[in-house]
Structure formats: structure tokens, C-alpha cells
């Protein structure tokens, strides 16, 4: 495989301006991420200490193999909800390494509202368990939750993908022969009691851990019985009387060493074998991405320059280099794993859509995982293109993409507008992981277009009513729409709503993809099969 020859001049003025703009954005991003992970009001820190509990980050440290990476998902979930008062949606999720095995981790963060489940908490846990199911990853639950957040119970409890889905997914994991363990380091009340009881193994920490369907106050209200936490659902009772708990741990440290020992008892299933090559760092420095990603989103850039800073040795075998050139397709290795890459170098035309569909079929035939790099403003519109059948060529691309059996991974590198998002494996299309870069935007169309469209509708409506509008009045209608839409398409809104698995520093993309691909190989790859291609 040949190395991509970069044409980037790192001394050019626009490179430096882009670099400065991205560095500024990343400063904010890293600060927000740090605050979400580590900054809490003193009273919450004091409360945990009083309860003799460790924080969730310390618990993860006890659980995970030292010196191994932890791929955290959706760190900034709920950052634009609840007035920012529920950092990370009160839960930490991710893929980490325990006793040399890749596991999915779901850990309540009791320093936030006692680990209560908000609507976004549930969404984040369900997503993690979906990741575990798709990739056949064993799960470690670290339970410490006050239960569903009652004032918002309608957003936590009743619907198909809400609270019940957590437990339903646990059942499906067990049915699929994927092991789970729960470490109970706080109360598991009501529905929460099913997390440890649906796990194959559980460990309860003496003194702080407890499991019950109804806590002492609820029992008193329901039946008048007066009973303490320990007698009702403490570690001693459950591990010696009810059999609800398996192991009693004296301390947090003891609990996590037991958990690690239990994980090491599990049978390892061999990973799916795909083509691999010796690991090689990219020839070009990934930090140069900061200078390549334009500070103005509308400015075009060559995705090959991006790929050169992501893939092993910056080597890329490009497929059909002279056809459908707005769609860059080709083979490369990431962390030694062979992948097929689809990256946008402009709008999708008929030829670029057909090229993408054909390339995805090649990768499926070959059992080569697919990686999508999105910078897509849409499929081309206009009479010429409709006559050539742009809608049916787009449909072919969707049929090939949605019908792919190989694992897919998506990076929203810049724009992700309209049907282009679908064709390029947006959230609805089952990418095993999907990450966004901090300056990226996602929406049905660009902010200016959307604001103009919405303002035009309003203006025409007023004009029909016989009102003549001045320039200022039109601006007064348009501006607030534009402001709101601009915020709605930002990466922070996407990540707050869990439309992605997290925002990435572009320089970390390679490692996030490497971990994702490695994890995906815990699941087998089916034989290729598709629906009907509209030819």
C-alpha cells in the first residue's frame, strides 16, 4: 500500500489560522470534559465521603487493568439539559480492559444527584447495553443509584427504549450467552434491583451496598413494617439468607478485586479473524489535523489529507481514483486492522453514490469493516440529476450501506446534513460507534438554509395576510430562528442528546477507531445479503 503524499504546507497562513481556531475549540472541549469528569460541588464530595464510598472514577481505576485504555462514551451527555446540573447524565459508560478482556462498563455516578436515573441516563445506559449486544462484550455494572428521577418519570420509565429496556437488554445479553457482573456499591432500589439480579454474578459491598424492591420508607408506607436497610437488603442478608447476592465484599477494594477474579473465570471466545498487518503509526502527525480542518465549515478540504493522519503508515489503496471523485473510497489499516474507508470530498452525485455502493459490496464480500468519514452537505439536487436518477442511486447506496453485515464505524468530521447523513452511516444506521469532531454540525440542512426556509414560510404567511414587511422586520424574524438553529446543529447539542458516542479531539480519532474495531471483532460477521437494489 502506498503512502498518501500530503500537499499540506504547515507554514501556510490558512493552516496556522485553522490550527489556532481548532486549538481554541479543543481548549474549551477538554475543559468541559474535565469538569464533567472531576468537578463536583463540595457538598456532593462530602456526602460520598460521609457514606464511605469511592467516586466512580476511583472505582473504575480499581476495576480496570492498569495502563490500559478506557474508551469512554458520551462524556458530555446531557450537557445542554437540566441546566447543566447532571454532568455526564450521572453515569459513566465505555469499553475497558479487565484481566485482558474487553468489557462494556456501566457505572452510576453517585456524586451527581445520588446517581439518579434521568431520561438521558437511561438513554446512555441503553446505548451501552446495545453496544454490548452488537459486539458481544461482557458487561460490568457498577450500581449506585438513587433510582429513577421522579419529577421526570415520564421520560425515564414507560416507553420502549426507556428504563425497561435496560433490563430487557440484560435478559437478551444473558440469552446470547454474554456474561454480566454487577458490583453493588450503593442502593439498588425498585427497578434498580434487577441490574444485579439479572447479572450472572454480583458482589455487594458490606455497609454501603443494598438491594430491595422497596426501601425502608416505602415499606413503612405500604405495610407499616419498620425495618432497617441492612436487615431489608444488606450484604449479609442477601449473601447468606436470600441468595440474591453472590459475594460479600468488606471494602470497595475487596469488591473490585473479587470482580476482577470473577471476570477472569469467564470463557474467552475467539475473536473474528479479519485481514491484519503489522501495527504502524501514521507517517504524518495526527495533530496536523488541527490545521487541515478549515475554521469555516463551508471551505472544502481533501479527505485524503485527513486519512493520512489517521491510518497506519499513512498508507491508502484508493479504489476508482478517477471515478465519482467526490466520494473517496479505499483500503487502509487502523491499528493493524484492514478497513474499507468511505470519505466525502464533496456532494454525492450519481457516480459517487454508485461507487460507494459498489465499494461497500466489495468490503462485505471480503469481510472488511467499514469506516465512514462524513463531510457531507447532501445528494446533488436539480433537474439534470433527478433525470439521471439521483434518488434511486442514493437508494442503492442506502441499500448497500444498511444491508452491510460487516461492522461499521462513523466519524462526523465536519458537515452531516440531510440524506447524506443516512448514506454515510449516520446514527440510525447502526454504526458500532459514532463520534463527532468538535466543530462538526448535524442537521437536516445547513443553518443558513434552514433559517431562510423557516423565515420565508413565516414571511409569506404574513404577506398573504396583507402585511408589508420592512428589511428590519424580516431580519427580526430571521435572526432568532438562525440563532436557535445554529445551536441545535452544534456537536454539543448532538452529544448532549446522545446522537453520537462522544465528541473526539481529532488527534484521538485513530485510537478511538482502533479500540472500536478491536471490540467489534468479539462478534462474528454474517454472510453478505441485501435487499432489492433499484437498478
Amino acid at each position: 500500500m502506498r503512502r498518501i503524499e500530503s500537499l499540506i504546507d504547515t507554514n501556510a497562513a490558512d493552516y496556522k489560522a485553522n490550527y489556532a481556531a481548532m486549538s481554541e475549540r479543543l481548549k474549551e472541549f477538554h475543559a468541559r470534559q474535565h469538569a464533567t469528569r472531576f468537578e463536583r460541588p463540595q457538598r456532593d464530595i462530602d456526602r460520598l465521603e460521609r457514606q464511605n464510598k469511592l467516586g466512580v472514577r476511583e472505582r473504575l481505576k480499581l476495576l480496570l487493568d492498569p495502563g490500559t485504555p478506557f474508551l469512554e462514551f458520551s462524556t458530555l451527555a446531557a450537557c445542554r439539559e437540566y441546566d447543566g446540573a447532571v454532568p455526564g447524565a450521572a453515569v459513566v459508560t465505555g469499553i475497558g480492559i479487565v484481566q485482558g478482556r474487553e468489557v462494556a462498563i456501566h457505572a452510576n455516578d453517585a456524586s451527581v444527584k445520588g446517581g439518579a436515573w434521568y431520561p438521558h441516563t437511561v438513554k446512555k445506559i441503553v446505548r451501552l447495553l446495545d453496544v454490548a449486544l452488537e459486539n458481544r462484550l461482557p458487561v460490568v455494572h457498577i450500581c449506585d443509584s438513587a433510582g429513577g428521577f421522579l419529577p421526570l418519570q415520564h421520560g425515564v420509565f414507560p416507553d420502549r427504549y426507556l428504563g425497561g429496556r435496560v433490563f430487557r437488554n440484560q435478559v437478551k445479553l444473558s440469552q446470547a450467552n454474554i456474561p454480566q457482573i454487577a458490583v453493588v456499591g450503593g442502593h439498588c432500589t425498585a427497578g434498580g434491583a434487577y441490574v444485579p439480579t439479572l447479572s450472572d454474578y454480583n458482589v455487594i459491598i458490606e455497609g454501603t451496598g443494598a438491594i430491595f424492591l422497596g426501601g425502608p420508607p416505602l415499606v413503612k408506607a405500604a405495610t407499616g413494617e419498620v425495618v432497617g436497610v441492612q436487615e431489608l437488603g444488606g450484604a449479609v442478608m442477601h449473601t447468606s439468607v436470600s441468595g440474591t447476592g453472590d459475594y460479600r465484599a468488606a471494602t470497595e477494594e475487596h469488591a473490585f478485586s473479587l470482580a476482577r477474579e470473577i471476570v477472569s473465570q469467564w470463557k474467552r471466545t475467539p475473536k473474528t479473524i479479519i485481514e491484519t498487518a503489522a501495527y504502524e503509526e501514521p507517517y504524518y502527525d495526527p495533530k496536523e489535523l488541527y490545521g487541515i480542518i478549515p475554521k469555516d465549515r463551508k471551505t472544502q478540504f481533501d479527505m485524503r489529507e485527513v486519512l493520512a493522519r489517521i491510518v497506519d503508515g499513512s498508507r491508502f489503496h484508493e479504489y476508482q481514483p478517477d471515478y465519482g471523485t467526490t466520494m473517496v473510497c479505499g483500503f487502509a489499516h487502523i491499528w493493524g486492522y484492514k478497513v474499507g474507508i468511505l470519505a466525502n470530498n464533496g456532494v454525492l452525485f450519481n457516480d459517487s453514490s454508485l461507487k460507494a455502493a459498489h465499494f461497500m459490496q466489495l468490503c462485505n464480500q471480503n469481510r472488511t469493516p467499514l469506516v465512514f468519514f462524513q463531510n457531507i452537505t447532501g445528494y446533488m439536487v436539480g433537474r439534470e440529476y433527478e433525470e439521471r436518477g439521483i434518488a434511486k442511486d442514493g437508494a442503492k447506496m442506502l441499500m448497500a450501506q444498511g444491508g452491510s453485515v460487516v461492522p461499521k464505524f462513523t466519524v462526523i468530521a465536519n458537515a452531516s446534513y440531510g440524506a447524506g447523513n443516512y448514506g454515510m452511516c449516520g446514527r440510525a444506521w447502526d454504526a458500532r460507534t459514532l463520534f463527532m469532531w468538535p466543530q462538526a454540525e448535524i442537521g437536516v440542512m445547513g443553518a443558513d438554509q434552514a433559517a431562510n426556509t423557516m423565515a420565508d414560510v413565516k414571511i409569506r404567511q404574513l404577506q398573504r395576510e396583507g402585511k408589508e414587511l420592512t428589511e428590519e422586520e424580516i431580519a427580526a424574524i430571521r435572526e432568532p430562528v438562525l440563532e436557535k438553529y445554529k445551536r441545535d446543529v452544534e456537536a454539543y447539542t448532538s452529544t448532549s442528546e446522545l446522537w453520537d458516542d462522544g465528541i473526539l479531539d481529532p488527534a484521538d480519532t485513530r485510537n478511538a477507531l482502533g479500540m472500536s474495531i478491536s471490540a467489534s471483532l468479539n462478534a462474528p460477521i454474517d454472510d453478505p445479503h441485501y435487499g432489492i437494489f433499484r437498478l
Partner: protein
Amino acid sequence: MRRIFQIDGDETECWLSHDGSGMILNTPDGAIPCRLDPTGLPGGHELRAKGRVQDVRLAVGPDATFVHMNGRTYAIGRVDPSERLAGNDSGAADDRIVAPMPGVVVSVNAKPGDHVKEGQPLLVIESMKLETSLTAPRDGVIAEMPFAAGDSFGLKATLALLASEED
């Protein structure tokens, strides 16, 4: 895909194969049975070929392998065969920059009579919410720049024309 190496400016094609008992280096001058064993020293190896035993030290770089032997260092460049064999088949570059899609001209960076280099940006267009910079397909002199900033154009409109290089 044969491997192509460059030693002291000369290119040679080699291929390493295995005959069940040892390695065979296939060169244009014939097959040479050989064997390379690490000695434990950093980069140190013992090379056996043609009945001789030779101490060598190897260092592998991204484009070349360096071999230290008999007090001299040889750089053995690895040449990518597909690249080497492709020649200069990029074809004659067009004189014309044609609109890849309908759109609007955002800015024009060259005027008729200007000498331009291949890859130099000539104009920026906007279409489908995206600004695209169109560059000179080859070195040459601008003959026509028919559109100004703000003008709209249709598919396949000529956006820039270089003076013909014929005669």
C-alpha cells in the same frame, strides 16, 4: 507485485522465497540460497549466502533499509512498484476548467494573462452549501476568466480557460 530496490542509484528487482528448507533470494542474475539470523546485538545479524558468512547490522526506516557491512553503510531504498511502473500517465491536462455542478462564483483569484502554476487556486465556487476551490490543471497562462464574483453558472460551464499549448 515484485519488489523494487534502489542501491547506489541503481534499481533492481528482487523477491525472497522459501524452498522448504531455507530462504532463496531471486535476483535478475539468478537464485541465491541465503539465511539471516539475529545475533542479539542491536540490529546485528549474520548473513549466510554463497558459502560466506557475513556480519551485518540493519536499521529499517520508512522508505529505506540501511545495511552496515564491512565498514560501509548501504541505503537500500524501497520503491513502490505500482508507483514506479505507472510512469507519467496522468494524460494531457485539459486547458479548460469546467463547472462540476451549477453554483455561484465566490471569488476569482486570477485574470487573463496571468502565469499560473499547476495546483494554483484560480477561483472559489459555492454550490450545495460548500465552497470549492478550483485549481489550475497545469502550468500555463490564463486565456479567459468568464465569470466574476457573484455570478451564477450552470453545469459544465467553462469557468477558466488556459492558453493552448499547441504549437
